[in-house]
């Protein structure tokens, strides 16, 4: 199926989704961000500074790696990994943070706030703030702080203040609400560096554009290496920034299948997962209209995923639009399958992936045996160091003084 429109309308609508649903106090600040971003796109000095930072600070372009041992073990499709995990700070998030911190500087802001789930966006934000000498405050749900302790410490080491959010589900959603409350209170001095393709316009399209390089590079690299486009692109979808960044360059290539993988958590039952296209319905949360996990009264449901970065009740609006048009399809992967995929990649390729990225990988692993001759591209959005505490808990047989060398039986968390 072809996509007729790649850009939202002037108010940030992707079809019926997106838009700007915030208290009036935030409308003018959002217009300011939009104006600065539009100007920056036309400004060659801005683009040159960003390109330089992406290359020399973050490490772009990232490698495209063929996972031959993994593919061999599965028997079937060839699998290529886009190695966003090799970027500075360990995930794709730095692309957007570098773009937005330059914008913040242009807008004369001295203070940057952010929300974080897995902590990768928080670390990337703290990193760019250190680089530019800006004050940095990161909001993080207390449950996420407990399961991503390494990243909490990294942020503090980088000079950021990490503020725990102890209400609601104590995860990403509540961190975003708290960041919005901070922003509305401190708009004169503060830029809200939102970390996913979520929220009010212009964030979904702006964040996507800062991540478009993922798909643009991967598309060119695939052509160079294989002389063809991939048959299928896989990416995990929380808010959906790594996925939209990976998908966007392929949208006009109608023959390329695009697959987003949401968090199936413990299974598709209310409160047990974060698969918005499997039980969600259009709604409005935190600035945007999109698929939302909600009850019959319009209250937002709690979510669960072993992966903090996918544990969120709403999906980015452009994904909702691609879903409805049939241009991308969205499936889900449960906790156990993601953990097993992470282990398999570690053992076959020497790459420990982030739990988020393991969701996209798991779907490629599931499908590969049945699709010989096909070429898969998986966006490996982040590395797994931050998840070591979770892996240790799930694979206890690898811990302790004399760990067994065998394949662990875990992966059922």
């Amino acid at each position: 199926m072809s996509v007729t429109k790649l850009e939202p309308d002037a108010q940030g609508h992707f079809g019926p989704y997106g838009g700007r649903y915030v208290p009036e106090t935030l409308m003018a600040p959002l217009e300011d961000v939009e104006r600065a971003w539009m100007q920056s796109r036309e400004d060659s000095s801005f683009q040159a500074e960003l390109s330089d930072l992406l290359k020399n600070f973050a490490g772009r372009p990232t490698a495209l790696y063929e996972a031959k041992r993994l593919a061999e073990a599965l028997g079937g499709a060839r699998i290529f990994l886009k190695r966003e995990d090799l970027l500075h700070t360990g995930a794709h998030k730095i692309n957007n943070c570098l773009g937005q911190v330059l914008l913040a500087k242009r807008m004369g802001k001295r203070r940057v706030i952010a929300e974080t789930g897995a902590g990768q966006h928080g670390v990337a934000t703290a990193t760019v703030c250190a680089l530019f000498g800006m004050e940095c405050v990161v909001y993080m749900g207390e449950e996420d702080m407990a399961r991503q302790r390494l990243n909490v410490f990294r942020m503090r080491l980088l000079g950021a203040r990490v503020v725990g959010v102890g209400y609601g589900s104590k995860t990403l959603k509540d961190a975003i609400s708290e960041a919005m409350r901070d922003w509305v209170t401190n708009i004169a001095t503060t830029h809200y560096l939102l970390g996913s393709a979520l929220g009010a316009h212009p964030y979904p399209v702006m964040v996507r554009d800062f991540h478009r390089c993922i798909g643009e590079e991967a598309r060119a690299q695939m052509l160079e290496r294989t002389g063809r486009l991939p048959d299928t692109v896989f990416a995990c979808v929380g808010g959906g920034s790594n996925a939209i960044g990976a998908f966007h360059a392929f949208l006009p290539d109608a023959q390329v299948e695009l697959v987003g993988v949401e968090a199936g958590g413990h299974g598709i039952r209310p409160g047990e997962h974060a698969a918005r296209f499997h039980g969600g319905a259009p709604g409005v949360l935190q600035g945007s209209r999109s698929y939302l996990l909600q009850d019959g009264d319009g209250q937002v449901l709690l979510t669960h995923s072993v992966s903090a970065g996918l544990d969120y009740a709403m999906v980015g609006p452009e994904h909702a639009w691609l879903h409805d048009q049939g241009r991308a399809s969205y499936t889900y992967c449960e906790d156990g399958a993601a953990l097993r995929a992470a282990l398999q990649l570690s053992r076959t390729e020497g790459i420990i992936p982030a739990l988020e990225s393991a969701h996209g990988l798991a779907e490629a692993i599931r499908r590969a045996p049945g699709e010989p001759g096909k070429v898969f591209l998986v966006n490996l959005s982040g590395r797994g160091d931050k998840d070591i505490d979770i892996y240790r808990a799930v694979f206890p047989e690898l811990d302790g003084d004399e760990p067994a060398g065998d394949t662990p039986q875990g992966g059922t968390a």
Partner: protein
Amino acid sequence: MSRIGELFTRKRAEKKPVLIGYITAGDPSPERMPSLIAALERGGVDLIELGVPFSDPVADGPVIMKASERALAAGMTLAKVLDLARAVRLQSEIPLLLFSYLNPVMRYGFSKLAADAKAAGADGCLLTDLSVEEADEFVAPLREAGLDTVFLAAPTSPPERLRRVADHSSGFVYLVSRTGVTGEQSRLSASVGPLVESLRARTALPLAVGFGISTPEQARETARLADGVVVGSAFVRIVEAQGAGPGLEPALEAFARALKTGMEG
């Protein structure tokens, strides 16, 4: 004219300010609400904002946020808020403004809300996170049903936005006194005066000021500038402190009276 419009017209003729009280519906319990509202009315509250609890109240500070959690835990829903409006109408003609986030209303359906809210005796609706840009599908059915639509004007709103906010509003315009979330503060924001003046130049609608007004002195100061004064978190804090105890209604009534006396003094 709506009950809200009549109220402001009457008070303007009397040269008296309107006292608007916000409470979160369902806190401390759905059953207790009619008696709370009666107490506020006895104490001098002229218009009730009935807060529809929402799971993710991004515009609210901790006091109202916690009240929303308590109300949701007590089983409050938008449908039950309309039941409450119906119950209040059996005993009172006090204007009732539904005060909600968008998602519960969108889930309920704008047209269905318009019909059901009108039938229940509610007088209008304000949606905290609905910008005027996205408001058409909300405003049309409500106005058609004879309900008022109230929008927020903020200190950050440029003149062009103030005009659009006024154009989409009926009954009154709700001015946010300061940048920030709901909650008490020690002194009135300096941005109120210029915001009132700027809106006066653009609309004949009555203007009410809220966010952070929590003492009779602040209410008096605000009443000198605007037609109405909104007090929310300070009432909700009383509900938080008293819980379902017998002192709740007397405390609300006494505080409302203190505010009213302060405003009119």
